[in-house]
């Protein structure tokens, strides 16, 4: 099918983008890499949007490190995240996530900010942000604010972003000495959305476990985290099973997803211990 856009405007700066969103009076839609939005437009799932194209705002792209955190601009493309030397050193989880996101040609256009703001519950980056304890930085008519990843994802395709606000960057604490970050997922084919995915981060403060494709939004499995902190993997798997309420669909049943979540946790813990390459 063919897209039906209500109109298009190219934003020259963040300020200009905010003006455009305000002028759109609720019909505005931020266009970044477009790898989900244009697909939705072509399928007429999204019709009549007034597109605010932010993709040329160069200062929204790039990776920098400072104050113990890695700052990633919202327009940094998946392929850039995957090959960036700072990401490689400081947040290897994001690097590893990239290889699971769709296909090479899509990773060349899709942006990390777009993926986070889109909040697809089956996507890798939102769960990574949760597992890493990332902060999402938002600009809007009422000024800039920061939202913890745990407060950002609210429901399917729904975030704490208000009408007229723009996600500008995320910051992620740089990995401490000895920190281990692992991503495990099962998909039927390379590039497919995960049937279930799991991020595991081990820090001196404890374990963090985030899952995706197990419900309407990515979740932190706090019970399983506490059990792993206590060194009881079996209890962690049992707790995880109770903490998620995955859907059944044509790809997998809820029971299978619940089973897979436990399998992935065991695999991730094995990798933490260096048992598996």
């Amino acid at each position, binding site marked *: 099918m063919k897209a039906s856009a209500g109109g298009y405007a190219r934003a020259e700066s963040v300020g200009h983008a905010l003006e455009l969103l305000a002028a759109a009076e609720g019909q505005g839609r931020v266009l970044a890499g477009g790898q989900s939005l244009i*697909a939705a437009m072509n399928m007429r799932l999204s019709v009549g949007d*007034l597109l605010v194209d932010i993709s040329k705002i160069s200062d929204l792209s790039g990776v920098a490190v400072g104050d113990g955190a890695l700052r990633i601009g919202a327009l940094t493309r998946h392929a850039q995240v995957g090959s960036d030397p700072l990401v490689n050193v400081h947040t290897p989880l994001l690097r590893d996530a990239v290889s699971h996101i769709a296909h090479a040609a899509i990773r060349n256009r899709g942006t990390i900010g777009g993926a986070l703001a889109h909040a697809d519950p089956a996507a890798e980056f939102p769960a990574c942000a949760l597992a890493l304890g990332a902060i999402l930085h938002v600009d809007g008519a009422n000024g800039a604010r920061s939202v913890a990843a745990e407060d950002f994802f609210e429901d399917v395709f729904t975030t704490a972003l208000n009408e007229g606000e723009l996600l500008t960057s995320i910051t992620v604490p740089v990995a401490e000495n000895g920190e281990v970050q692992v991503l495990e997922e099962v998909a039927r084919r390379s590039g497919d959305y995960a049937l279930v995915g799991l991020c595991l981060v081990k820090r001196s403060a404890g374990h963090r476990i985030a899952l995706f494709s197990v419900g309407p939004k990515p979740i932190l499995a706090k019970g399983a985290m506490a059990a792993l902190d206590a060194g009881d993997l079996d209890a962690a798997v049992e707790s995880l099973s109770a903490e998620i309420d995955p859907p059944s669909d044509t790809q997998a049943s809820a029971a299978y997803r619940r089973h897979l979540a436990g399998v992935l946790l065991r695999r991730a813990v094995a990798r933490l211990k260096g048992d598996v390459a």
Partner: protein
Amino acid sequence: MTEPFRDKVDVSMTVNGEPVEARVPAGQHMIDFLRLELGLTGAHASCEHGVCGACTIRVDGDAVRGCLMLAAQADGAEVWTVEGLTDTNTIDDLQDAFIARNALQCGFCTPGMLVAAEELLSKGGVPSRAEIREHLSGNYCRCTGYEAIIDAVESVAQDRAGKVTA
């Protein structure tokens, strides 16, 4: 319509090395623009939601989904399609290998397959068969079963690497 938003957008880009200026509908994707306005019918509009890869073109050096990029977003871009890569003899060896290895039958996926494969080959070296398969995993072929395509890409990588060291 709200004032700053346009339903037609002026764009200026290069396509296959030639400057192009046009006024495009706001919601038109690159493939419709290339095919309907410029007559470049090599890249195909097929699934139009980023799954099949038949629309793969090169924009600013990267292989991208032409159906998931608006023509309005291509302002200032350098765009290459299979026609331009053919006319500049950039992919002669790859095309010859596709024929020699029976890496195409109906040919519908081939333009996208060639652009995607050329992106991998342009990185140099000889990728493993698994790496070739992974790089082309976003390009559907319903005829060949992929094995012959992997053969073709692998043989070109080996030939090019041999020429570099020779």
